């Protein structure tokens, strides 16, 4: 699958693409259905209908009088024309701006966005000069999103990959249901951040509100300031040299490395007490275990 080039994919019919991308794993006859699909197979971040773009091809879009749908349609159209750098001017806090971009793109938003800004994305590099509303970059798969000012609640909900950075402070429930990637907050974060976190890393340079990491399955949270309280099954752990090296590199990358370094950060991980409870009954145990 990995050996198929984008050029080859373009020449294929939809049926052939489906097969080439591993969507088709076996013939529709007999016991061949027992062949399993491979969850570890390389996942393509660029699907054949996601256009190839040229980062040097740049355009600006004044979104002042446009609806959200018009803006998002224009982004897709411009990407189809090969524009790799798109600047959105006057976003005026519109909701759902830049959602569902499943390809490489430099998206620069000059201003602030509303709810669900750049949600459901896979690949673009986004820079937002203003503030963002609730659920920015929710379910992001890959790419980078950097916000210069503050963000609302549920920042980076359920993200699975990429770097999501807010240089200011964020609301509550940051990184809720987080499944991978990295969230970096330059300022403070609110209550219940990292709630039911599953994987990935969250870095909060400032303070964290109450119930940090409540019911987290896995993943790691680093906090530079004070933690109001830890949530259920969240525990502190030793900050290793590897953690410090990673923190230093990552924070430096986004200009957020504190003058005093990263030694003062607190590391929070899952206590793993909620991983299992005795869900079988004695008669079931006898038969099953």
């Amino acid at each position, binding site marked *: 699958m990995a050996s198929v080039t984008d050029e080859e994919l373009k020449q294929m019919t939809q049926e052939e693409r489906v097969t080439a991308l591993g969507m088709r794993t076996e013939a529709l006859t007999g016991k061949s259905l*027992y062949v399993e699909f491979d969850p570890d197979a390389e996942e393509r971040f660029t699907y054949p209908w996601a256009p190839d773009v040229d980062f040097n091809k740049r355009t600006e879009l004044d979104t002042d009088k446009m609806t959200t749908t018009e803006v998002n349609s224009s982004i897709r159209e411009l990407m189809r024309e090969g524009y790799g750098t798109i600047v959105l001017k006057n976003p005026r806090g519109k909701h*759902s701006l830049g959602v569902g971009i499943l390809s490489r793109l430099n998206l620069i938003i000059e201003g602030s966005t509303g709810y669900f800004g750049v949600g459901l994305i896979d690949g673009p590099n986004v820079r937002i000069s203003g503030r963002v509303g609730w659920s920015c970059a929710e379910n992001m798969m890959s790419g980078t999103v950097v916000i210069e000012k503050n963000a609302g609640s549920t920042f980076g909900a359920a993200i699975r990959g990429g770097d999501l950075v807010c240089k200011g402070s964020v609301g509550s429930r940051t990184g809720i249901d987080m499944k991978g990637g990295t969230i970096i907050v330059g300022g403070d974060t609110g209550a219940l951040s990292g709630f039911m976190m*599953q994987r990935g890393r969250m870095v909060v340079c400032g303070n964290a509100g109450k119930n940090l990491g409540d019911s987290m399955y896995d993943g790691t949270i680093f906090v530079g300031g004070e933690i109001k309280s830890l949530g259920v099954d969240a525990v502190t752990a030793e900050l290793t040299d590897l953690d410090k090296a990673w923190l230093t590199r990552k924070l430096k990358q986004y200009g957020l490395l504190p003058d005093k370094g990263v030694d003062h950060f607190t590391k929070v991980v899952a206590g793993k007490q909620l991983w299992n409870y*005795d869900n079988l009954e004695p008669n079931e145990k*006898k038969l099953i275990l």
Partner: protein
Amino acid sequence: MADGDLPQKKPLNRDVNRIGDSFIFPPRVMDDIHIKSELGRYRMRGFSLFKKIPHWDDLTFLPGTLTRFVIEGYREKCETKTVIGPRAKKPLELDIPVYITGMSFGALSYEAKTALARGATMAGTATCSGEGGMIPDERRFSSKWFYQCIQSRYGFNPNHLVLADGCEFFIGQGCKVGLGGHLMGQKVTDQVAEMRSLPAGIDQRSPARHPDWLGPDDLALKIQEIREATDWQIPIQLKLGAARVYDDVRMAVKCDPDSIYIDGMEGGTGAGPHLATEDTGVPGMAAIRQARKAIDDLGKRGEISLVYAGGIRNGADVAKAIALGADAIAIGHSAMMALNCNKDIPEANYPEEIGAEPGYCYHCHTGRCPVGVATQDPKLRERLDPDEAAERVYNFLHTLTIEAQLFARACGKTYLHSLEPEDLAALTMEASAMAGVPLAGTNHTVGVEDYHHL
């Protein structure tokens, strides 16, 4: 007995000195208390509710005789085409009114998921991913496919969203309204864990709230986000567990989806606390009527579809749900039975393997499904032949449809969706009150002063 002897009187098989049995604390309740006293927690199980509630059997059809003109049962056409989300650019058009509801890969085996997809495709209807993300072959085998956006967002991938024919927001389910999903550690294999970004072998208890919206105002914006991500092409459906149905559906309508799915308390689960299954939710016949009224009161009939699921066993149930106001029906539990759930197959030894006789198994949560449906165990999965299973699913869906047509024709309808509440009567006071149809043989609808102004 020698000739001429009188037959000996049999001794009584009961203790005449016993005053009585407790209705509140029968032996099963005492057993339950004894077990919980040892366990120190609620009891988990699969299946749907066990207790009796007002159900489809409490309604009967009033077919045509002289006051209505019947349609020739086996010859004249009775259309079954069903459209979910007619306002969407690409509505979901089904050949039959029944489709397969969301059941996750994880709860069900790979073979079960793909067999459901293939059976549904053969019948011209849809399937749904359920929780835990898309398995490529389910998408491949489903000609029409809902992608579920569930609270946990396990495996949710925008690249898969754009492959969907519809997007369903899971907000709750009828058999455990207000609770998140459960998948016990026995079924969280490496493969399932990887798809869900979880550690393998843990007891997975999904969140009950969505991560990125809290109330209807946020949900309206979330729906807009999904519409933007899918270029406003596909219908968006909200799945609600039946509780405060009228108010919930009014709020759902305000969020502007294309379809609302109501799951009655009869619905099943692969794992859940026994008591939640027994003691949450509202029966389907009440839920459909309230949901229909809410949609109609807001002037959205014909714009927002109403899908019902929960306790559907045969074509009569399908027809009754449609008559009460559903536009489409989703099935889960009975589709699993078509796959072989609770069937005594030669390869299985129920008592030894699961501790229950065929027909009494509710142990989906253990991952030891004797028929290879609700398991991830490779050996057990071999017991489900996906080719034969797909055929059975198709046969069952087809049967549900022709049975439902039978009642529609008998009631004089050439289109299945022309069935209406006037085609029904209730056999019990409770059913009359809940379904809003007259008690059989009377003009009296319980709770309605003047039945002409229902």
